[in-house]
């Protein structure tokens, strides 16, 4: 799916507005049906959702429609947000990212993610498996654990928004190697964060 990403722009523009309330979580108010809560949510997260969608979709009209769909989903799922598990930005970002990827998959006639209806009956809480603290600073500092060549691929993929074929062209590496290194890098990153979260771990320091 990385192959279908649209290249992102390079302008340095803040994604959150100057709204003084923008650092406060908005989803609890959205879930409670408070007036203007959804408007505040849009103000706070509109920029990042737009950025995520544009990374995956090059067609502007399609992207605009998808952003509205994403906010509908955010509105529907607001009561699932738990600030103890991840930040509001991450929660909203996950929804935006999933919807964008799903959109591309549907367009490509590939099987999409399972519907939520289909998984409801299993009664499994995936957060039982969550073992990392995705604090952005912790994640960024853990990137240093990666091998230099993998780190470079991470920069190209995440920082610069290049697709797998674009990375292959730039680095001369085969697509399969790029996939494998990115995946193994993600595994290594998780391992590093897990060790960092365990104070007595020998490699945590």
């Amino acid at each position: 799916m990385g192959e279908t990403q649209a290249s992102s722009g390079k302008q340095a523009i803040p994604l959150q507005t100057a709204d003084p309330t923008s650092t406060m979580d908005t989803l609890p108010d959205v879930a409670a049906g408070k007036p203007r809560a959804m408007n505040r949510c849009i103000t706070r997260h509109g920029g990042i959702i737009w950025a995520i969608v544009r990374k995956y979709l090059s067609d502007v009209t399609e992207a605009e429609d998808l952003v509205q769909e994403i906010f509908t989903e955010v509105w529907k799922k607001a009561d699932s947000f738990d600030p103890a598990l991840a930040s509001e930005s991450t929660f909203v970002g996950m929804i935006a990212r999933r919807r964008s990827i799903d959109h591309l998959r549907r367009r490509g006639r590939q099987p999409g993610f399972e519907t939520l209806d289909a998984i409801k009956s299993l009664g499994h809480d995936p957060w039982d498996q969550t073992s990392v603290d995705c604090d952005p600073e912790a994640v960024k500092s853990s990137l240093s654990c990666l091998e230099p060549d993998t780190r470079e691929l991470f920069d190209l993929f995440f920082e610069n928004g290049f697709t797998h074929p674009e990375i292959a062209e730039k680095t001369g590496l085969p697509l399969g190697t790029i996939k494998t290194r990115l995946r193994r890098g993600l595994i290594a990153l998780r391992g590093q964060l897990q060790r960092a979260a365990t104070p007595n771990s020998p490699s945590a320091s």
Partner: protein
Amino acid sequence: MTRSENQYRFEELSAGLAMADLSMAEERELRDLGTELGALPEIDFELLATTLEIESLRTNADPMPAHLVARLEKFADQLAVPSAGNATIITPQVSAWQRVIRSPLTGWAAAAAIALTAWIGSKSEGPVNPPLAASQLRSEAGDLIERDFQGLGKFSSASGNVIWSDKLQQGYMTLSGIPVNNPGETQYQLWIVDPKRDEAPVDGGVFDIPTDGSPVVVPIVAKLALSNPQAFVITLEQPGGVVKSKQEQVVALAKN
């Protein structure tokens, strides 16, 4: 491969799933390995990928266009019509026979998806607040069908309405005056008559009425895509519902 090799490969594919770069063959491999290992793809990888993506985009993206901001603001205003009043919100269930039929198909695939959709959707199957969602449906769906329910026979005190959108495949019933049922003995079952799909009515799931006569809001959980439904029928059936209703106890009917 040894179990630990399989485990590592499973992790690798789980990371690929989070990065959305799995091929069809790899998706199958992930599913098979998950079954073999009794494991689910971990949400950690998706969290990490999302965090990295957000952090990179904070300094590398264009702002949202002003006209889209205005459109979303208008959209948000439309959502702000809340209040279920005194209505109780009822969560309908898939009929027992459907659960039996579906279970082999959902199995691992559904379980795997949990790890990646999970937090986003684990708490509620439908919208958080059906009255709100119904309000949204009214404002958004250009193809909204709205019909009144009429109680029949000994259920003549039943009333309410149903709204449905083919485009969004979403709908809600608001019902009043329906007697409380004992779920161990009987359950209410919704049927949707959609001649374009099938001659037989589509099963819309079963639900209970917990408080005698009080208004309830029931999201519709049709498991098949509907197109221009002609009627909505509520019957009283055995616990878990039935595959085909004999319509011995028809509670209420809403039709064109």
